[in-house]
């Protein structure tokens, strides 16, 4: 796994972004995310009649002087989120010259940095086989992130991955932020249950599907015998011609459509990325366009 570079200028740009969490945030106090409930932030929200027992420091005495009635000033509440990022570390993510693994790590690191910039808590997990390995656990603050970022370079991609089997047993929090799954989703294994599980936990779910250029637009022709990088027993032997390529394009459409539709049906976000797209394009372009970041 090669080193990836996130330079100072890029990080400064990233700091200008903000994560938008769809669900009503129920995180810890002290974060940057405004919730629908009233709290103690500085941002005025509304008035309501004073009820005995209310904090009298929040009474608007100017309004009392004008209307001769006690009104209480209400302020929006701000909570701290816990962003959880799951990276598929199967061999298919890092085989050949696709660059999917590097892209996954870059995006994961960038999103993690974005989260800590917003005073959120960040955890990064590696999905390997049927288990989840903690790469970074609940760090808060830029300093902690900088100290932990080297761990991204230590991730190794091998074996198979079972997303649902890995995430379902884990504690994922409840309504306290965003869960991001980064994978190529090129598997017959079940991943829908994981999405359902996270959605049930009132988390904002974002599935990022990364595919290499060869997977998106194969140029190979002629007689080939493919072997699957994750399982040598899985092979494909064919004379690839125009007909097969057409069928492949339809299969690709089906596979991406499958996860896109599933996410859409569950109010989860889905993003298809090329492994060759720059992180800047992904963050400032596609993620901003779809409203995950602003």
């Amino acid at each position, binding site marked *: 796994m090669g080193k990836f570079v996130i330079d100072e200028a890029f990080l400064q740009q990233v700091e200008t972004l903000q994560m938008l969490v769809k669900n009503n945030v129920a995180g810890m106090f002290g974060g940057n995310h405004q919730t629908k409930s009233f709290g103690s932030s500085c941002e005025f929200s509304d008035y309501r009649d004073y009820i005995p027992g209310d904090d009298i420091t929040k009474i608007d005495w100017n309004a009392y002087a004008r209307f001769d009635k006690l009104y209480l000033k209400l302020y929006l509440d701000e909570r701290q989120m816990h962003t959880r990022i799951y990276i598929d570390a199967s061999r298919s993510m890092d085989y050949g010259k696709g660059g999917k693994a590097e892209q996954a790590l870059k995006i994961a690191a960038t999103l993690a940095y974005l989260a800590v910039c917003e005073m959120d808590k960040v955890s990064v997990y590696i999905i390997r086989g049927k288990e989840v390995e903690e790469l970074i656990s609940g760090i808060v603050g830029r300093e902690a992130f900088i100290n932990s970022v080297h761990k991204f370079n230590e991730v190794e991609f091998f074996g198979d991955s079972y997303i649902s089997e890995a995430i379902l047993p884990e504690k994922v929090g409840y309504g306290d932020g965003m869960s991001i799954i980064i994978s190529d989703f090129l598997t017959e294994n079940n991943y829908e249950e994981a999405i359902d599980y996270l959605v049930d936990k009132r988390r904002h779910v974002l599935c990022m599907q990364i595919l290499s250029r060869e997977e998106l637009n194969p140029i190979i022709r002629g007689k080939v015998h493919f072997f699957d*990088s994750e399982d040598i027993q899985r092979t494909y032997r064919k004379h690839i011609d125009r*007909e097969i390529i057409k*069928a492949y394009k339809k299969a690709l459409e089906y596979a991406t459509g499958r996860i896109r539709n599933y996410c859409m049906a569950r109010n989860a976000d889905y993003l298809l990325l090329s492994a060759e797209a720059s992180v800047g394009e992904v963050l400032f372009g596609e993620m901003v366009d779809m409203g995950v970041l602003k």
Partner: protein
Amino acid sequence: MTFIHPLGLLGLIGVPILIIIYLIKNKYTEQTIASTYLWTLSEKFLKRKKTPPKLVGLISLILQIIIVIAISLTIANPVFIFSDKAHEYCFILDASGSMQMEQDGNTRFEIAKEEIRERIDDSMKGSVYTIVCVSATETKVICNQSQDKEEALSALSKAEPSYGTVSFVNALEIAQGYFNESKGMETYLVTDKSYKSHDNVELINVSDGEQNYAVVGVTCERDSALAAFKIEATIVSFEEDGAVDVRLYMDDTNVAVEVKTENLVKGEEKTVQFYVERNSYAWLKVEIPNADSLMTDNEKMQYNLEVENSYDTLLVSENPKFLSWALESVGNANIKTYSPKEYAEVEKTGAPTGYGLYIYDNYVPNEVPVDGAVWYFNLNKSLEGTGFTYQAETAEKEVALRLKKTSSSTSRKLTADLQGAQIYVAKYIKYGLYYPFTVLYETPTGDPVVFTGTNVYGNSEVVFGFSFENSNFSIVPDYVILMRNLVEFSFPDVLERAEYDCGEKLAVNVPPACTTIKIKAPNGEMTYPATGIEAAEYVLTIPGTYQLLLTVSGEERSYNVYAGIPKTESCVTATEDSFRLQGEASDERLDGKYDDLIFFFILLFVVFAIDWGVYCYDKYQLR
């Protein structure tokens, strides 16, 4: 089937190579990829569920093998033989002047060539072609038993018509020779003439009854009674009755001297007379301006031969009457006369030049003239370059001169028609001869008195060793005859006539001391006949005026002659008796061949290239 280039079959080595390439390329390429999930999934979306049959995969290979075999065979150039399908052809092409007649914008000659071209094009390969072109000047085999169509067509395209009358005698002999070798030969005579019989020869008559007028003859003579020239032009219309204008031009091409309108009856010659009052003319032309199929024979020119052959004479004499009278009676001499005293004055500023004949009577010039014939009478002093020396003047007594005839051609010419009249001289000069001279008269003692030869400049020289005052010579009949002979000897006519037909030979009497002869044809082509002979010959091939330029002793003399279309060639419907090849024709045929596979080769190569292109596009996604 035979092969012209059997080595081309080496290309069949390409077949096993192709199979080896196919076997190598046909192996499955093993490759590990990130995931086979999508490829496996694509099976569900594949319309063609069944694997194509093996044969379908081999179609490309089979096609390529077929193409390689076909290309090899094509390079080997197989020749397909078709028994008895080819012929031997002999075409005899009439290139006479009448073949220049036009119909619908094409001359008969072009139509004749097209007829031959069509037959060659339609013939099967393997045929043998002989083309004999018969022109006015020669009978030429322009394509001799060639099997190459292109060569035959190329030779045919280069054939040009002439303007004269042709004889098919030689062509018939040539065709007979080929016919004797191959009795199956097809002989075609392509002409505009009709034949009463043409055995073993197929006649292709390309004449089509075109209208043609012609001026077939012109004569001009001096009518002394009318003091005018009487010109008679013979004209004819060959195809139809009609009225034509006949124009006469003399010395001026812009203004006709006279125009007459004549009614002509088809095929009947008519003589038109013109009378022109003038003293002389250089040339005349009779023209029919009406448009017809052969305009070349619508005019005839005649150059005045007397003017052409005229010369200037310088006569130095105290008493020139005898000589000038004699010269004027025998030729068209323009005589310039000087007395010895006058001439002596002229000589002080330089001797005159530019004369054809110099006559010195009782006068000794300072030097021998360089550019003309010279006659000396009673030359009483030696003169360098003459070839003889003055020795002495004899005593005054009457001497009878003896005519000396020898068998030499010069002597015969000079003494021709002389009657041998007795000539007496009272006084004569004795000369010593050291150049070869022809003595005409001598004394009984053998002293040469009248002799001829050439001087140091190569010009004619005539010497009389006495004066007319001391002789009865000028009153005897032989005087004028001898003068005529001497004029012809000294200044022979360069041209015998100035009017010819195309195909005739122009005879040029080469004067002594002539250094160059140039003949300029009507098309501007220059010819330089040799000058070292007495009579140069030149064949007049095209109609029009030929200019003859002679350089004699540094002086250029110009003559014109006109060559017209022969009368026989003007006739549109000439008929000959027969054209017959002796012998019994047979059905003998040659083997036809077909080897024109170049387009097939190109087609195969293109198909091969396309096939490989498609293969590479499909295999390597070239775009």
